[in-house]
């Protein structure tokens, strides 16, 4: 049971939920939400890479036997900011698209673009 409930398995599961959202849904907003879900799965994966039970945050007087790895944490701050930027830009592009075509469906957008 320990093998299935570690951070790696859970993050793979969350990532595949995001992939399902990308494949099965044709709503543009839901596509953006799926991208955000996949991004949080990647953050979870990186944060649990070097983790063991009972480790404390790497702040103050710590040794290599008590603290967690600070490198993935510092990298994931970058990933969070990039996620915010990607979500904001894609939502802005969606609003532009909606003003122009009046639909939230990928296929209808493609059809209307073909008609023009």
């Amino acid at each position, binding site marked *: 049971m320990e093998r*299935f409930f570690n951070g*790696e*398995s859970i993050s*793979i*599961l969350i990532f*595949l*939920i995001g*992939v*399902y959202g990308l*494949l*099965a849904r044709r709503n543009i907003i839901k596509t953006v939400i799926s991208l955000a879900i996949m991004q949080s799965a990647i953050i979870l994966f990186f944060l649990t*890479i*070097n983790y063991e039970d009972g480790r404390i945050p*790497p*702040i*103050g007087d*710590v*040794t*290599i036997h008590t*603290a967690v*790895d*600070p*490198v993935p*944490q*510092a*990298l994931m*701050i*970058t990933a969070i*900011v*990039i996620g*915010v*930027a*990607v979500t*904001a*830009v894609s939502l*802005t*592009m969606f*609003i*532009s698209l909606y*003003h122009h075509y009046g639909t939230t469906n990928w296929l209808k957008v493609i059809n209307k673009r073909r008609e023009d």
Partner: protein
Amino acid sequence: MRRIVTAAFIIGIFLLIISVNVIPLETSTDLFHYYINNFKADTGAENSVTAIYLNYRLFDTFFETLLLLVSVIGIIYFSRHEGDY
């Protein structure tokens, strides 16, 4: 129907990944040991995450803030229609 097939496909991939007998990832610990042992003497910070992203890996922070700036400029110009501000 399409959704059910996709869901079955995704569940199959998940079971396939989980059932593989994974060898634990052999992560390098040299960097971790160096940062934990030296971050106070090197940077004067108590928080090692701040020590990493403002001193050891400064270029990371530079390009991250540049990306936020570029995305803000992109939002301003994407959302401008027919002369309104």
